[in-house]
């Protein structure tokens, strides 16, 4: 048990994975000598060699495609995509190959590939460095998509992802990289599986479902709301595909109200899926329509506007007021 930043906790997780299994190899741009632009892989090439921690040419399709070949050969590649906005050149290899090869080969070939993606905004960056592309992958059958919100989860989940025999998209909330927390490096039967959601705050009035960077915001909202006498239950989804609907369903059956929040654009985002699925499962328990608090349906804006794109505490509380039927920004909205 030691205090680690979220970034460092992924690093120690990768270190463990490299130690535990000689078939684990890391591939990516600048992950070796530099340790990655966020230093997540700092020291790993020095300690495990350039054969296992490989700087690659600057070509994301190439990285993903060679990872497929390595997986064919029995390796467990861990690919780093430098920033969210640079994953698209690899999209074809991910959706047409990585996601489908196990199905295509009737189970003969496994693709235990982990794709690490620092994602999300709020860091004042230039274009392509603040995106939340997770929904593209949750719509792709054959992939697992997970994300973490605490150093502990970051550590255990990256190890679980690397150990998983399915391909896993592992989204890292880059604006929380420097958050610190206790990390226990022991994984045993009591460790929560990576495809389970976690209730991070218990409450009775409204279920707030979120993941990654906004878990902290939702926690703050729970605190603020409690001052107002409203009790929020905050669920960190952790796994976006598959979604642990059982946990969310159980909560909403109690609270009768759902707010989903994420940074990604609204239209066709994970929030739509969660709202639709939970409405299907809990329709007669719902007191209000599930509300979504998300990025707007515009390209991620320049840094000076990002606060007017990203959901924040106030927008979240406003949605809580909405599902509670209290005065809110849309009170009397006529469309």
């Amino acid at each position, binding site marked *: 048990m030691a205090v680690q930043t979220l970034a460092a906790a992924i690093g120690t997780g990768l270190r463990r994975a490299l130690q535990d299994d000689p078939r684990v190899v890391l591939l990516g741009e600048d992950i070796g000598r530099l340790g990655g632009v966020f230093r997540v892989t700092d020291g790993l090439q020095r300690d495990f060699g350039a054969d296992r921690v490989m700087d690659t040419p600057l070509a994301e399709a190439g990285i993903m495609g060679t990872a497929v*070949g390595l997986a064919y050969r029995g390796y467990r590649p861990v690919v780093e995509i430098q920033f969210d906005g640079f994953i698209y050149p690899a999209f074809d290899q991910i959706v047409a190959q990585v996601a489908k090869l196990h199905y295509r080969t009737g189970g*003969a070939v496994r693709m235990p590939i982990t794709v690490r993606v620092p994602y999300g905004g709020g860091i004042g960056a230039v274009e392509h460095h603040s995106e939340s592309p997770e929904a593209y992958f949750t719509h792709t059958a054959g992939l697992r998509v997970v994300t973490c919100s605490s150093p502990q989860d970051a550590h255990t989940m990256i190890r679980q992802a690397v150990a998983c025999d399915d391909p896993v998209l592992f989204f890292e909330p880059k604006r929380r990289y420097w958050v610190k927390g206790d990390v226990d490096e022991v994984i045993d039967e009591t460790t929560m599986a990576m495809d389970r959601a976690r209730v991070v705050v218990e409450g009775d009035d409204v279920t707030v479902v979120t993941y990654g960077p906004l878990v902290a915001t939702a926690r703050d909202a729970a605190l603020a709301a409690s001052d107002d006498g409203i009790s929020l239950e905050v669920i960190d989804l952790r796994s976006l595909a598959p979604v642990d609907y059982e946990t969310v369903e159980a909560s909403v059956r109690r609270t009768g109200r759902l707010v989903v929040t994420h940074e990604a654009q609204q239209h066709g985002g994970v929030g739509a899926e969660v709202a639709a699925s939970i409405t299907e499962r809990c329709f007669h328990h719902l007191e209000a329509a599930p509300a979504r608090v998300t990025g707007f349906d515009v390209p991620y804006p320049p840094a000076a506007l990002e606060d007017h794109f990203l959901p924040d505490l106030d927008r979240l509380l406003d949605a809580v007021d909405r599902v509670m039927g209290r005065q809110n920004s849309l009170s009397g909205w006529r469309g």
Partner: protein
Amino acid sequence: MLRSELSPNPVHHRTTDSRAGTDDDVDPWQDLPARPRATVQLLSPDGTRRSDPEYEPWVQDVGTDQISALYQDMVVVRRLDIEATALQRQGQLGLWPPLLGQEASQVGSARALRADDFVFSSYRENAVAYCRGVGLTDLVRVWKGTSASGWDPYAVGMATPSIIIGAQTLHATGYAMGCVKDGVDSVAVAYFGDGATSQGDVNEAMVFAASFRAPVVFFCQNNQWAISEPVSLQAVRPIADRAPGFGIPSIRVDGNDVLAVLAATRVALDRARRGDGATFIEAVTYRMGPHTTSDDPTRYVDKAEHESWAGRDPILRVERLLELGGHLTPELTRAVTATADAAAREMRDGCHGLEPPEPLSVFDHVYTSPTSWLERQRRQYEAYLAMYQDAPGGGEG
């Protein structure tokens, strides 16, 4: 036994250093050959041997028996190809991509491989699959639509074909990088077409292969066409010219000459096994049939071009070689025909016997272990099917 493996070449140990550098102070072109050599040909269309001091030694061990075996392979795969086209016409297969005309490129290269090499191919490499030992019924499963793939890649050392043009070249490169890590001298072979060379993936594969000195052979069958597009739309220079700029030596070979293809592939494999990295082979051949059974080449292929290539038939020239040497005996002809007939029959019968899979198998193998989410969809669909099995069924709109 005609279908035996050709003996592999002597094996050398691979060097450990896995990347070459560029030094700007040295003349960067000092090791560039003056100019690429002409297309490799060991057997002319009339069946006579052509001398080539560089490549001949690589097929010195290939005597009459082995030439007869290659001949039989080519006759069999052509026969299977024609049979599959017929099966498609009869409604047994949804689609078939004929390899007619490319028998020498595929057999000559595939027969150079060892069992522990690994092939990553496109959809047209059915002769390669045959040489790798893929079952005859397995060749048609995908085209009948009863299965997502025909065979277990690990059982035959050949991945299931990639329909996405060019994607497999990266897979081969990654696999080859894995071979180096494992310290074995197996080689990965990527098959693809002339059209594929335009794809980013194929070019990135060359970048990675060069950078990691990966033991991979890029085997491009330039059959002159990508559906209706002539190769001149993809490349204004010979395709073999592309690789050297990436630091990968290339060989242009007559793809209708099974001996030349065998020799060139052996050279490439040997280089890979010795630790010298990738080679690019352009096998210049011709797609004598349509792109697939859905295609209508009369819309775009010039008749004269087609006929000129018919004169360079890859099987005919081996037949002539055997004939000139007095080896095209009635026994051989009979044996080859019998083998081809038997193979065609086996494939046809196998094809007829293929049954659609169980409905609920649509949910199998998405993940390596069940997810509650997909299990729920499966069980709901099961309930749905159960209801409709009880009730009278409805029609589709």
